[in-house]
């Protein structure tokens, strides 16, 4: 493995697609400025019935699940001690760090009084320890910090070779200290998502009768936890495939094929929990009601079952194309599950409805564009992706 240490890709940063991404991000920043001046009512479709919308359902709830690649890989590598996947961890941590940072930023523009959000971590004497929302807020804030510390070696490795000797020595000392600290940071990096990803489920459990019975289950926290690990594997696979495509690297087919086994196990665990829960809670009638809710449920399940069955087909897991398609379906299913729980299955009553307004969508698009642009910039300048990685030899 040591012969395949990560290294910076190099190459030109500002390309035409890069300019497009930056343009989308600039547009999003303008819209965010408008939101700060004119308020949420003027810029979003949120209302008294739906006090949360796309920014929470996608940027935070779905976005952090997509950013769970770092968490899912950490479980595999550090908890199950599968060192062979090590080349996948750094890009996964980078995606996680970017995704969680964007999620935190989205919360900051989504809350009614953004200028007071700093009080959440600071005003410890006012914490309500029974609040799931507080737990999510603190966990996500802490996890963002943990992720960037986990990623810090990538930056320090580059800077310790800096031409200025003074800087290099400071960076070197920091890196050495960080090395000793890293096991604890990694442990925190596994603990924190376990806490807040399940709490994201708890929050909709608190919605009570407003949430449709197909999603309203005491197992919601568990389903969110398993779901985020599943989406994390999917995101890592997609990211690796697109990386191969965009940066013209060798596809990590063999490693991804092995990863897809872990994904398949998680997938079937999720489906099993979901179906068992629905049957035990006697919701078969709602499952086959033929309405919007049952349609959405079967959409989720079918999107999972296709890769769930295909993964056990020998020919499928050896083809990078099928691994990619399977990961896309898994991620899509996980995203729909989360949208269903937060928006589709949520009914505040009396004619309330919600569909994200144009500025809302453009802000989300711009933030995703920023994430992609930042990812490209960092992998080109810092040692993130494993050089000449050939999974077979790992």
């Amino acid at each position, binding site marked *: 493995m040591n012969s395949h240490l990560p290294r910076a*890709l190099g*190459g030109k940063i500002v390309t035409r697609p890069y300019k497009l991404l930056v343009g989308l991000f600039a547009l999003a920043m303008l819209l965010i400025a408008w939101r700060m001046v004119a308020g949420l*009512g003027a810029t979003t*479709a*949120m*209302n*008294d*019935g*739906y006090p949360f919308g796309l920014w929470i359902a996608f940027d935070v709830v779905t976005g952090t699940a997509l950013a769970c690649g770092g968490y899912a890989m950490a479980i595999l590598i550090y908890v199950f001690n599968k060192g062979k996947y090590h080349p996948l961890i750094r890009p996964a941590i980078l995606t996680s760090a970017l995704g969680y940072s964007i999620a935190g930023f989205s919360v900051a523009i989504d809350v009614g009084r953004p200028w007071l959000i700093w009080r959440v971590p600071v005003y410890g004497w006012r914490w309500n320890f029974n609040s799931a929302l507080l737990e999510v807020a603190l966990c996500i804030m802490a996890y963002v910090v943990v992720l960037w510390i986990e990623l810090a070696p990538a930056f320090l490795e580059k800077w310790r070779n800096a031409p200025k000797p003074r800087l290099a020595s400071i960076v070197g000392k920091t890196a050495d200290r960080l090395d000793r600290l890293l096991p604890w940071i990694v442990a925190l990096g596994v603990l924190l998502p376990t806490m807040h990803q399940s709490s994201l489920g708890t929050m909709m459990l608190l919605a009570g009768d407003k949430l449709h019975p197909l999603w309203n289950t005491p197992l919601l926290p568990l389903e969110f936890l398993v779901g985020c690990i599943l989406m994390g594997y999917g995101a890592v696979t997609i990211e690796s*495939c*697109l990386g*191969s*495509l965009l*940066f*013209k*690297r*060798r*596809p990590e*087919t063999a490693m991804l094929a092995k990863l897809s086994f872990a994904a398949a196990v998680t997938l079937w665990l999720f489906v099993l929990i979901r179906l068992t829960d629905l049957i035990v809670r006697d919701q078969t009638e709602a499952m086959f009601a033929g309405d919007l809710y049952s349609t959405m449920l079967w959409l989720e399940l079918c999107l999972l079952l296709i890769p769930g069955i295909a993964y056990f087909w020998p020919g499928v897991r*050896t*083809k*990078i*194309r099928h691994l*990619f*398609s399977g990961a*896309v379906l898994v991620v899509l299913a996980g995203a729909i599950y989360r949208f269903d729980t937060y928006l589709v299955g949520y009914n505040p009553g*009396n*004619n*309330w*409805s*919600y*569909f*994200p*307004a*144009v500025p809302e*969508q*453009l802000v989300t*698009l711009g933030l995703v564009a920023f994430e992609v642009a930042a990812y490209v910039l960092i992998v080109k300048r810092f040692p993130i992706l494993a050089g000449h990685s*050939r999974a077979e030899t790992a």
Partner: protein
Amino acid sequence: MANVDRSPNLPANGVSRRTFLEICSIAAAAVGLPASAAAKIATLVQAGRKPSVVWLSLAECTGCTESLLRTSMPALDELILDLISLDYHEALMAPSGELAHSSLRQTMEQNAGSFILVVEGAVQTADGGIYCKIGGETALELLREVADAAGVIVAIGSCASWGGIPSADPNPTGAQGVPHVLPGKTVVTIPGCPPNPYNFLGTVLQYATFGTLPTLDGLGRPKFAFARTIHEHCPRRAHFDAGRFVRRFGDEGHQNGWCLYELGCKGPQTYANCPTRKFGEIGAWPIGIGHPCFGCTEQGLAFRVPLFETVEIQRPTPPDTYPSIASDQGGVSPAATAVAGAVAGAAATAAYLASRKLGDLNDDGAGGEE
């Protein structure tokens, strides 16, 4: 009555200095004067520089005087007489007849241009004012004469302010309020039937202490007392906003203290500080005891609009406290669906193209090198 010694004889009245200062504080607070004003009032009163007051009683029932005297604070009636120098008041003064009249003349001469003229009761103007005569003069003549020499004119009660009950239809004696009879002169009006004694006392004490009058509205009413409607600060306002109305006296709502609007409460159109200042100091005011406000301070309401007729809500304030029953419930805009569709379509196309291109890559690692 115009005796030389005007210092308050407090011990004789059984009032301690503490109680005396308390009364000064209450009087100062009533008009929103700063706390320091209480000390200043006390100093001025003790120095014997009490404001000289001439009180004219015209077409009235003496209810205003009664309200001033029958307050529940211990010995407040006496303190009112101590805080001001009541030099002429037909109902309260000891002399009568010619002696009383000479007292009036003497006060007017000694305090020309500085004494406070308080008028209680309406001025009857029909037939040259012959329906009310005092000491051989018509009330109209007497009022004009005294007003010319007064420093400030205060019309106490609804009758003096705008005519009150004597001016009720068909008004055979042509009863009018003091401002109507004294055009061009500043007349402070303290309407109410009866008025709150603190509104009067505060106004008078501010003038005596600082030489100024409180801010007045277009009808000469001190804004500290008459700037808001009863409805705005009504203790039953929450019931109005929630739509809980008393339908008849003694019903469930009435027993539970609901809103009296449908019984004809004039609170929404009546400007007065009854809900905050309370009345008669013990909270006994119409709405407080379960009776609709009858609009005693308002010329257009009292003794004109029937007691149980409802009034229009003229100033529905503040609108943002009403429950939002018609707020935007959300919807789907065509532009939003178009953008969402475009983004989803682009993502799906990108995913499909990526999977196609991935299929072209050689899984054995023969894909293009950097």
